[in-house]
Protein backbone atom coordinates (compact mmCIF):
# COMPACT_ATOMS: atom_id res chain seq x y z
CA UNK A 1 0.00 0.00 0.00
CA UNK A 2 1.34 3.43 -0.87
CA UNK A 3 2.01 6.10 1.73
CA UNK A 4 -0.91 8.24 0.62
CA UNK A 5 -3.39 5.44 1.20
CA UNK A 6 -1.76 4.54 4.50
CA UNK A 7 -2.11 8.13 5.73
CA UNK A 8 -5.72 8.32 4.58
CA UNK A 9 -6.61 5.03 6.27
CA UNK A 10 -5.04 6.24 9.50
CA UNK A 11 -6.90 9.54 9.25
CA UNK A 12 -10.25 7.77 8.81
CA UNK A 13 -9.48 5.46 11.72
CA UNK A 14 -8.63 8.48 13.86
CA UNK A 15 -12.08 9.93 13.20
CA UNK A 16 -11.51 12.10 10.12
CA UNK A 17 -14.41 10.67 8.12
CA UNK A 18 -13.87 13.08 5.23
CA UNK A 19 -10.60 11.26 4.43
CA UNK A 20 -12.58 8.24 3.23
CA UNK A 21 -13.60 9.92 -0.01
CA UNK A 22 -10.07 10.60 -1.34
CA UNK A 23 -9.14 7.08 -0.22
CA UNK A 24 -11.74 5.37 -2.42
CA UNK A 25 -12.07 7.86 -5.28
CA UNK A 26 -9.27 6.24 -7.39
CA UNK A 27 -11.24 2.96 -7.29
CA UNK A 28 -14.60 4.53 -8.04
CA UNK A 29 -14.65 3.69 -11.76
CA UNK A 30 -12.79 0.36 -11.70
CA UNK A 31 -15.08 -0.94 -8.97
CA UNK A 32 -18.23 0.18 -10.74
CA UNK A 33 -16.91 -1.24 -14.01
CA UNK A 34 -16.24 -4.64 -12.48
CA UNK A 35 -19.61 -4.61 -10.72
CA UNK A 36 -21.27 -3.75 -14.05
CA UNK A 37 -19.59 -6.67 -15.80
CA UNK A 38 -20.48 -9.08 -13.04
CA UNK A 39 -24.10 -7.99 -12.60
CA UNK A 40 -24.66 -6.87 -16.24
CA UNK A 41 -26.90 -4.05 -15.10
CA UNK A 42 -25.89 -0.54 -14.09
CA UNK A 43 -28.46 -0.17 -11.34
CA UNK A 44 -27.47 -3.48 -9.75
CA UNK A 45 -23.82 -2.55 -10.22
CA UNK A 46 -24.33 0.75 -8.41
CA UNK A 47 -26.04 -1.07 -5.59
CA UNK A 48 -23.18 -3.56 -5.31
CA UNK A 49 -20.57 -0.79 -5.46
CA UNK A 50 -22.43 1.24 -2.85
CA UNK A 51 -22.56 -1.81 -0.58
CA UNK A 52 -18.81 -2.18 -1.16
CA UNK A 53 -18.07 1.36 0.01
CA UNK A 54 -20.33 0.97 3.04
CA UNK A 55 -18.64 -2.28 4.04
CA UNK A 56 -15.19 -0.85 3.40
CA UNK A 57 -15.98 2.04 5.70
CA UNK A 58 -17.50 -0.21 8.34
CA UNK A 59 -14.67 -2.73 8.40
CA UNK A 60 -11.76 -0.38 7.76
CA UNK A 61 -10.53 -0.91 11.31
CA UNK A 62 -10.03 -4.61 10.52
CA UNK A 63 -7.94 -3.79 7.40
CA UNK A 64 -4.29 -4.78 7.71
CA UNK A 65 -2.43 -1.59 6.84
CA UNK A 66 0.54 -3.59 5.51
CA UNK A 67 -1.59 -5.14 2.76
CA UNK A 68 -2.85 -3.72 -0.53
CA UNK A 69 -5.91 -1.54 -0.14
CA UNK A 70 -6.85 -2.19 -3.78
CA UNK A 71 -6.98 -5.98 -3.30
CA UNK A 72 -8.96 -5.53 -0.09
CA UNK A 73 -11.64 -3.28 -1.59
CA UNK A 74 -11.93 -5.47 -4.71
CA UNK A 75 -12.31 -8.48 -2.44
CA UNK A 76 -15.22 -6.73 -0.73
CA UNK A 77 -16.78 -5.96 -4.10
CA UNK A 78 -16.50 -9.55 -5.34
CA UNK A 79 -18.12 -10.82 -2.14
CA UNK A 80 -20.85 -8.19 -2.31
CA UNK A 81 -21.51 -9.15 -5.95
CA UNK A 82 -21.67 -12.84 -5.03
CA UNK A 83 -24.15 -12.11 -2.27
CA UNK A 84 -26.18 -9.96 -4.62
CA UNK A 85 -26.14 -12.65 -7.31
CA UNK A 86 -27.18 -15.23 -4.74
CA UNK A 87 -30.09 -13.05 -3.62
CA UNK A 88 -31.12 -12.35 -7.19
CA UNK A 89 -30.71 -15.90 -8.45
CA UNK A 90 -34.39 -16.73 -8.09
CA UNK A 91 -35.26 -13.80 -10.35
CA UNK A 92 -32.75 -14.84 -13.01
CA UNK A 93 -35.38 -15.52 -15.69
CA UNK A 94 -36.98 -12.11 -15.25
CA UNK A 95 -33.60 -10.40 -15.21
CA UNK A 96 -32.56 -12.14 -18.42
CA UNK A 97 -35.66 -11.00 -20.24
CA UNK A 98 -34.85 -7.38 -19.49
CA UNK A 99 -32.57 -5.78 -22.04
CA UNK A 100 -29.07 -5.22 -20.79
CA UNK A 101 -29.37 -1.75 -22.26
CA UNK A 102 -29.98 -0.43 -18.79
CA UNK A 103 -26.24 -0.20 -18.38
CA UNK A 104 -25.22 3.37 -17.97
CA UNK A 105 -24.21 5.46 -20.91
CA UNK A 106 -22.94 8.95 -20.44
CA UNK A 107 -25.77 11.45 -20.85
CA UNK A 108 -25.69 13.43 -24.05
CA UNK A 109 -23.93 10.65 -25.94
CA UNK A 110 -24.95 10.54 -29.60
CA UNK A 111 -27.20 7.65 -30.74
CA UNK A 112 -24.64 6.14 -33.10
CA UNK A 113 -22.03 5.86 -30.37
CA UNK A 114 -24.70 4.55 -28.08
CA UNK A 115 -25.53 1.86 -30.62
CA UNK A 116 -21.85 0.94 -30.95
CA UNK A 117 -21.60 0.77 -27.17
CA UNK A 118 -24.60 -1.58 -27.02
CA UNK A 119 -23.09 -3.79 -29.69
CA UNK A 120 -19.75 -4.02 -27.91
CA UNK A 121 -21.47 -4.63 -24.59
CA UNK A 122 -23.68 -7.38 -25.93
CA UNK A 123 -20.68 -9.12 -27.55
CA UNK A 124 -18.67 -8.96 -24.37
CA UNK A 125 -21.68 -10.13 -22.38
CA UNK A 126 -22.17 -12.98 -24.80
CA UNK A 127 -18.56 -14.08 -24.37
CA UNK A 128 -18.73 -13.82 -20.59
CA UNK A 129 -21.96 -15.83 -20.55
CA UNK A 130 -20.05 -18.93 -21.57
CA UNK A 131 -18.04 -18.81 -18.34
CA UNK A 132 -18.89 -20.18 -14.92
CA UNK A 133 -19.16 -17.55 -12.15
CA UNK A 134 -15.66 -18.34 -10.86
CA UNK A 135 -14.13 -18.33 -14.36
CA UNK A 136 -15.83 -15.01 -15.01
CA UNK A 137 -14.42 -13.48 -11.84
CA UNK A 138 -10.93 -14.74 -12.62
CA UNK A 139 -11.09 -13.59 -16.24
CA UNK A 140 -12.39 -10.13 -15.32
CA UNK A 141 -9.78 -9.57 -12.64
CA UNK A 142 -6.79 -10.90 -14.55
CA UNK A 143 -7.53 -9.97 -18.14
CA UNK A 144 -9.84 -6.98 -17.89
CA UNK A 145 -8.74 -5.33 -14.64
CA UNK A 146 -5.11 -6.32 -15.29
CA UNK A 147 -4.44 -7.73 -11.85
CA UNK A 148 -1.72 -10.33 -11.64
CA UNK A 149 -2.41 -13.94 -10.65
CA UNK A 150 -1.42 -13.43 -7.00
CA UNK A 151 -3.55 -10.33 -6.64
CA UNK A 152 -6.50 -12.08 -8.26
CA UNK A 153 -6.06 -15.03 -5.91
CA UNK A 154 -6.01 -12.66 -2.92
CA UNK A 155 -9.17 -10.91 -4.09
CA UNK A 156 -11.00 -14.16 -4.73
CA UNK A 157 -9.73 -15.82 -1.55
CA UNK A 158 -8.34 -18.84 -3.37
CA UNK A 159 -4.95 -20.22 -4.36
CA UNK A 160 -2.88 -19.05 -7.33
CA UNK A 161 -3.14 -22.57 -8.76
CA UNK A 162 -6.92 -22.34 -8.69
CA UNK A 163 -6.76 -18.97 -10.46
CA UNK A 164 -4.52 -20.46 -13.18
CA UNK A 165 -6.84 -23.41 -13.71
CA UNK A 166 -9.95 -21.22 -14.01
CA UNK A 167 -8.16 -18.62 -16.10
CA UNK A 168 -6.98 -21.25 -18.53
CA UNK A 169 -10.50 -22.65 -18.89
CA UNK A 170 -11.97 -19.16 -19.27
CA UNK A 171 -9.55 -18.15 -22.03
CA UNK A 172 -10.26 -21.34 -23.95
CA UNK A 173 -14.01 -20.77 -23.76
CA UNK A 174 -13.69 -17.13 -24.81
CA UNK A 175 -11.62 -18.19 -27.80
CA UNK A 176 -14.20 -20.77 -28.84
CA UNK A 177 -17.07 -18.27 -28.52
CA UNK A 178 -15.29 -15.54 -30.47
CA UNK A 179 -14.28 -18.00 -33.17
CA UNK A 180 -17.85 -19.28 -33.48
CA UNK A 181 -19.79 -16.04 -33.34
CA UNK A 182 -17.42 -13.16 -34.03
CA UNK A 183 -14.68 -14.51 -36.33
CA UNK A 184 -14.18 -11.00 -37.74
CA UNK A 185 -12.68 -10.01 -34.37
CA UNK A 186 -9.97 -12.63 -34.86
CA UNK A 187 -9.36 -11.36 -38.37
CA UNK A 188 -9.01 -7.80 -37.07
CA UNK A 189 -6.44 -8.93 -34.57
CA UNK A 190 -4.17 -10.47 -37.16
Amino acid at each position, binding site marked *: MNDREKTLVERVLNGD*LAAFEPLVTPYRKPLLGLACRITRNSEDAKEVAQET*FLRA*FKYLKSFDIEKEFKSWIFQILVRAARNYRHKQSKYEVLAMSEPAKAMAI*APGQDPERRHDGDEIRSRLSDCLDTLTPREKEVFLLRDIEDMNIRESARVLGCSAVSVRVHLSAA*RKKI*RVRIKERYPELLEDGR
Partner: protein
Amino acid sequence: MNCKKAERLIPLAAGNDLSGKKAAALLIHLERCPDCRKEAAELEHALRAAKALAGGDRTGDWSEAEWLNLMRNVRAAGIQKKRVWAEIPLKPVVVGGLGLVLLVFGSLLLKKSPAPVVTRAAFESPSIEQAAPKGIDGQPGVTSRTIVSKETGLKIIWFYNKNFQGDGFGK
Protein backbone atom coordinates in the same frame (compact mmCIF):
# COMPACT_ATOMS: atom_id res chain seq x y z
CA MET B 1 6.99 -31.23 -24.48
CA ASN B 2 4.08 -32.96 -26.22
CA CYS B 3 0.95 -31.38 -27.70
CA LYS B 4 -1.23 -32.39 -24.73
CA LYS B 5 0.96 -30.52 -22.30
CA ALA B 6 1.30 -27.59 -24.69
CA GLU B 7 -2.49 -27.39 -24.95
CA ARG B 8 -2.67 -26.90 -21.19
CA LEU B 9 -0.05 -24.17 -21.20
CA ILE B 10 -1.14 -22.19 -24.28
CA PRO B 11 -4.02 -20.31 -22.58
CA LEU B 12 -1.70 -19.16 -19.80
CA ALA B 13 1.06 -18.25 -22.25
CA ALA B 14 -1.44 -16.11 -24.18
CA GLY B 15 -1.65 -13.76 -21.22
CA ASN B 16 2.04 -13.99 -20.22
CA ASP B 17 1.18 -16.01 -17.14
CA LEU B 18 3.82 -18.70 -17.57
CA SER B 19 7.10 -18.86 -15.71
CA GLY B 20 10.27 -18.42 -17.81
CA LYS B 21 11.19 -22.10 -17.88
CA LYS B 22 7.75 -23.31 -18.99
CA ALA B 23 7.38 -20.46 -21.47
CA ALA B 24 10.72 -21.36 -23.06
CA ALA B 25 9.77 -25.03 -23.31
CA LEU B 26 6.44 -24.11 -24.89
CA LEU B 27 8.12 -21.80 -27.37
CA ILE B 28 10.38 -24.63 -28.52
CA HIS B 29 7.32 -26.86 -28.98
CA LEU B 30 5.42 -24.16 -30.90
CA GLU B 31 8.30 -23.76 -33.33
CA ARG B 32 8.00 -27.42 -34.21
CA CYS B 33 4.20 -27.90 -34.08
CA PRO B 34 2.04 -25.91 -36.56
CA ASP B 35 -1.28 -27.01 -34.94
CA CYS B 36 -0.27 -25.76 -31.52
CA ARG B 37 1.15 -22.63 -33.09
CA LYS B 38 -2.19 -21.95 -34.76
CA GLU B 39 -4.05 -22.50 -31.53
CA ALA B 40 -1.69 -20.21 -29.61
CA ALA B 41 -2.14 -17.47 -32.22
CA GLU B 42 -5.93 -17.80 -32.11
CA LEU B 43 -5.97 -17.64 -28.34
CA GLU B 44 -3.81 -14.54 -28.32
CA HIS B 45 -6.08 -12.83 -30.87
CA ALA B 46 -9.20 -13.85 -28.97
CA LEU B 47 -7.79 -12.50 -25.74
CA ARG B 48 -6.80 -9.25 -27.43
CA ALA B 49 -10.28 -8.99 -28.94
CA ALA B 50 -11.94 -9.56 -25.55
CA LYS B 51 -9.75 -6.89 -23.99
CA ALA B 52 -10.59 -4.51 -26.83
CA LEU B 53 -14.30 -5.18 -26.29
CA ALA B 54 -13.91 -4.46 -22.60
CA GLY B 55 -11.94 -1.31 -23.38
CA GLY B 56 -14.67 -0.06 -25.70
CA ASP B 57 -17.38 -0.89 -23.21
CA ARG B 58 -18.16 2.24 -21.22
CA THR B 59 -19.56 0.87 -18.03
CA GLY B 60 -20.71 4.25 -16.79
CA ASP B 61 -19.99 6.21 -13.70
CA TRP B 62 -21.81 7.98 -10.92
CA SER B 63 -22.75 11.54 -11.61
CA GLU B 64 -20.99 13.95 -9.26
CA ALA B 65 -24.23 14.50 -7.33
CA GLU B 66 -24.74 10.74 -6.97
CA TRP B 67 -21.16 10.27 -5.83
CA LEU B 68 -21.36 13.05 -3.24
CA ASN B 69 -24.62 11.63 -1.98
CA LEU B 70 -23.11 8.16 -1.73
CA MET B 71 -20.14 9.45 0.26
CA ARG B 72 -22.50 11.40 2.51
CA ASN B 73 -24.50 8.21 3.13
CA VAL B 74 -21.34 6.27 3.93
CA ARG B 75 -20.19 8.91 6.41
CA ALA B 76 -23.67 9.14 7.92
CA ALA B 77 -23.74 5.37 8.41
CA GLY B 78 -20.38 5.61 10.15
CA ILE B 79 -21.49 8.47 12.40
CA GLN B 80 -24.70 6.67 13.27
CA LYS B 81 -22.79 3.57 14.23
CA LYS B 82 -20.38 5.63 16.27
CA ARG B 83 -23.21 7.38 18.10
CA VAL B 84 -24.87 4.16 19.07
CA TRP B 85 -21.82 2.22 20.13
CA ALA B 86 -19.23 4.77 21.05
CA GLU B 87 -21.24 6.52 23.70
CA ILE B 88 -22.31 3.38 25.51
CA PRO B 89 -19.49 1.90 27.55
CA LEU B 90 -19.81 -1.67 26.35
CA LYS B 91 -17.81 -3.44 29.06
CA PRO B 92 -19.70 -2.18 32.10
CA VAL B 93 -23.01 -2.78 30.32
CA VAL B 94 -22.10 -6.38 29.53
CA VAL B 95 -20.71 -7.04 33.01
CA GLY B 96 -23.70 -5.37 34.64
CA GLY B 97 -26.13 -7.32 32.49
CA LEU B 98 -24.45 -10.62 33.29
CA GLY B 99 -24.44 -9.75 36.99
CA LEU B 100 -28.14 -8.98 36.85
CA VAL B 101 -28.90 -12.27 35.12
CA LEU B 102 -26.87 -14.18 37.72
CA LEU B 103 -28.64 -12.34 40.52
CA VAL B 104 -32.07 -13.21 39.14
CA PHE B 105 -31.13 -16.88 38.67
CA GLY B 106 -29.53 -17.02 42.11
CA SER B 107 -32.56 -15.55 43.80
CA LEU B 108 -34.83 -17.93 41.90
CA LEU B 109 -32.74 -20.88 42.96
CA LEU B 110 -32.49 -19.78 46.58
CA LYS B 111 -36.10 -18.86 46.85
CA LYS B 112 -37.93 -21.71 48.52
CA SER B 113 -41.60 -21.85 49.29
CA PRO B 114 -42.01 -21.74 53.07
CA ALA B 115 -42.60 -25.13 54.58
CA PRO B 116 -46.12 -25.40 55.87
CA VAL B 117 -46.12 -25.07 59.63
CA VAL B 118 -48.42 -27.70 60.98
CA THR B 119 -50.00 -26.60 64.19
CA ARG B 120 -52.62 -28.22 66.21
CA ALA B 121 -54.95 -25.28 65.45
CA ALA B 122 -54.55 -25.94 61.76
CA PHE B 123 -56.57 -29.08 62.11
CA GLU B 124 -60.25 -29.00 62.38
CA SER B 125 -61.16 -31.10 65.22
CA PRO B 126 -64.79 -32.16 65.30
CA SER B 127 -66.61 -32.03 68.59
CA ILE B 128 -66.94 -35.15 70.59
CA GLU B 129 -70.68 -35.25 69.77
CA GLN B 130 -69.90 -35.21 66.05
CA ALA B 131 -67.07 -37.65 66.42
CA ALA B 132 -68.92 -39.89 68.76
CA PRO B 133 -72.59 -39.96 68.01
CA LYS B 134 -74.64 -41.74 70.60
CA GLY B 135 -75.35 -45.38 70.08
CA ILE B 136 -78.70 -47.10 70.43
CA ASP B 137 -78.16 -47.68 74.15
CA GLY B 138 -77.27 -44.05 74.73
CA GLN B 139 -73.59 -44.91 75.20
CA PRO B 140 -71.08 -43.23 72.97
CA GLY B 141 -70.76 -45.38 69.85
CA VAL B 142 -67.32 -44.19 68.80
CA THR B 143 -66.01 -46.11 65.84
CA SER B 144 -63.93 -43.48 64.05
CA ARG B 145 -62.68 -39.92 64.31
CA THR B 146 -61.81 -37.66 61.33
CA ILE B 147 -59.33 -34.80 61.41
CA VAL B 148 -59.02 -32.51 58.32
CA SER B 149 -56.14 -30.10 57.76
CA LYS B 150 -57.37 -26.60 56.82
CA GLU B 151 -54.19 -25.88 54.87
CA THR B 152 -53.46 -29.05 52.96
CA GLY B 153 -56.81 -30.79 53.02
CA LEU B 154 -55.18 -33.87 54.57
CA LYS B 155 -57.81 -36.00 56.13
CA ILE B 156 -56.91 -38.36 58.97
CA ILE B 157 -59.46 -40.89 60.08
CA TRP B 158 -58.93 -42.80 63.28
CA PHE B 159 -60.79 -46.03 63.71
CA TYR B 160 -61.29 -47.49 67.14
CA ASN B 161 -61.93 -51.05 68.23
CA LYS B 162 -64.00 -52.07 71.17
CA ASN B 163 -61.10 -51.52 73.51
CA PHE B 164 -60.86 -47.95 72.19
CA GLN B 165 -57.47 -48.61 70.64
CA GLY B 166 -57.00 -46.34 67.65
CA ASP B 167 -55.70 -47.26 64.26
CA GLY B 168 -55.46 -44.27 61.89
CA PHE B 169 -54.60 -43.58 58.27
CA GLY B 170 -54.68 -40.54 56.06
CA LYS B 171 -56.63 -39.84 52.92
